[in-house]
């Protein structure tokens, strides 16, 4: 069996003094850009129980962002909503299964993803290190805002109950869940699985697998830029956003995760500011982070916080 993971791992990450000022400035720039939402019915993906739409909205640098939007055919005038965030290399799914559970569901394709890559397309591998020496142009600056604007889109929809919005995702989607819950107070519940983008430089030292391997590749080729890389990613590290999270949140990690080292998951969880938080570490699991057992926990969590059910339904 693999060695036990140190739950008291000490991260090397430091929070920049101007972290909040940096993101305040980004948010100010983004807020000046109209959302310009388009909601286009997709009859091919619509069924008797779920209506599916292709959604587009504008984000930072005027980049058009695509998303899938599903809603239950039978729903209340104001329905709770879930935003789903994608993994690093996955194609954002059509979230019919969430609509079947009674939520309006938005599955966002941040810039560079399929359908959002006409204006920005660094590719895979490459996204993780695109302009990584400059926080003002680093790929994830816009990428993060694209996901936060997904919440703004949901808030613009008359059929969405603005008091019952949740966010979830696994891997990169888990990391984006952290940053979104931190930056959008309207998020009332969050579930992050195997969070990526948390403890960037720790992960580069702890494991040698892609996607974090991209950073290792970059600093091996450009060792003189290592300090700039470390400076940049500190502004984007989910661990540095975590203290802003106030909503109920659950986090699941796999103790044999070969992509997002579990040590970084423990560090993240310790830094989360919410009082109502729970960590689910799964021994014997890798980057799936115990999904086979955890899916039901996530369902109950959102049912309790967004559907006003006891979670046993």
């Amino acid at each position, binding site marked *: *069996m*693999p*060695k036990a*993971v140190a739950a008291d791992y000490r991260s090397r990450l430091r929070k920049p003094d101007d972290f909040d000022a940096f993101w305040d400035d980004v948010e100010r720039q983004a807020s000046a850009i109209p959302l310009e939402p388009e909601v286009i019915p997709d*009859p*091919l*993906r619509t*069924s008797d129980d779920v209506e599916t739409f292709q959604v587009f909205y504008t984000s930072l640098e005027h980049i058009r962002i695509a998303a899938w939007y599903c809603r239950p055919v039978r729903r209340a005038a104001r329905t709770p909503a879930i935003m789903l965030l994608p993994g*690093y*290399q*996955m*194609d954002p*799914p*059509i979230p*019919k*299964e969430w609509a*079947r559970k009674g939520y309006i569901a938005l599955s966002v394709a941040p810039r560079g993803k*399929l*359908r959002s890559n006409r204006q920005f397309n660094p*590719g*895979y*591998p490459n996204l993780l290190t695109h302009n990584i020496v400059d926080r003002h142009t680093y790929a994830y600056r816009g990428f993060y805002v694209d996901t936060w604007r997904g919440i703004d889109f949901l808030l613009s929809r008359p059929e969405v109950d603005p008091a019952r919005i949740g966010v979830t995702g696994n891997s990169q989607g888990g990391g984006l869940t952290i940053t979104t819950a931190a930056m959008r107070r309207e998020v009332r519940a969050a579930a992050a699985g195997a969070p990526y983008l948390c403890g960037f430089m720790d992960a580069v030292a*702890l*494991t*040698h*697998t*892609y*996607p974090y*391997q991209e950073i*290792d*590749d*970059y600093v*091996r*080729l450009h060792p003189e830029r290592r300090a700039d890389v470390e400076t940049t990613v500190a502004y984007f590290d989910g661990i540095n956003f975590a203290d802003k999270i106030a909503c109920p949140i659950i986090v699941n990690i*796999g*103790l*044999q*995760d*070969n*992509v997002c*080292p*579990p040590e970084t998951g423990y560090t993240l969880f310790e830094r989360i500011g919410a009082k109502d938080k729970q960590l689910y570490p799964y021994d*014997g*699991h*890798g*980057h*799936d982070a*115990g*999904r*086979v057992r955890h899916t039901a926990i996530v369902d109950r969590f959102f049912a309790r916080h967004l559907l006003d059910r006891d979670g046993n339904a």
Partner: protein
Amino acid sequence: MDDAVRKYWQDTLDELASYPARPEFDVLPIRSTPFATLYSVRLTSLGPYRLFGYLSIPTGTGPFPAIYYPPKYQSVLEIIPQGTANLQRSRYITFSLAGRGQRNADTPFAAMFPGLLTEGIDNAASYAFRGIVADSVRGLEFLLTRRELDAARVVLVGNDVALIAAALTAGATHVLTTPALFYKTAELATKTPTYPLEEINDYVRTYPARAEAARRTLGYYDLRGFAPRVTATTLLMAGAPGTLLDARALEPLVAALKGPVTVHESEQSTYKDGLYAERWMAARCGITDVQSILPEHWRD
């Protein structure tokens, strides 16, 4: 495999053979390490269509065992699968190929996910996967030309397309396959609301007049038709018991495979399933110290 299916694939292979691969290589310094050099590869397939791949060659004299990753069902092309230790490249030649429509091979055709599974499905001659299967065969043909390769240790790793490629062309000694697309597709799609098979349901619901044509096309791709031509030693990764593609459901496929086959039922842990697969490949390729090429969190 009946005569019509055999002819369909023979015609496809004959047409592929009419296009020379004309490979181009460029070293990618950022992805090269002291233990392996990475090349971008461009080569021609059926159409003609120019494809893209990542070829990694270990440092040293070889010959080396090889892992070929034919096109996956996703837009992104990985150098090696996410979560695989980069050190895998120190012991194996690895070659991953973007089929037409995937990133770096998405001009002129950019595939949609979901969407690709039903692209042109009402006509077997123009179904997108005819080209993708041809691409997979072309990738294997290309890999087998590498002088660093040990032809006695060539593993294909992937979904249904890996098994189909192994059936259609010689050279694969081992196949590690996880069926997801082309096993009783039309029948199983009706039992799940989950993508990618939900694409079939969407298509049939929207275009009921084309349903029979789609079913006919899928008949050319069913794994049971290819299995008697697969002589490679095969590891079949089945779903967990009770899932759509569990070991019980795959029994007819197992029975039809010509070469030796091992079935691994998913333990619903990417760690346990991944470790099993890594050990299986290493054992078949004569790699005795598999621990050294596992991800850090999987090592003892």
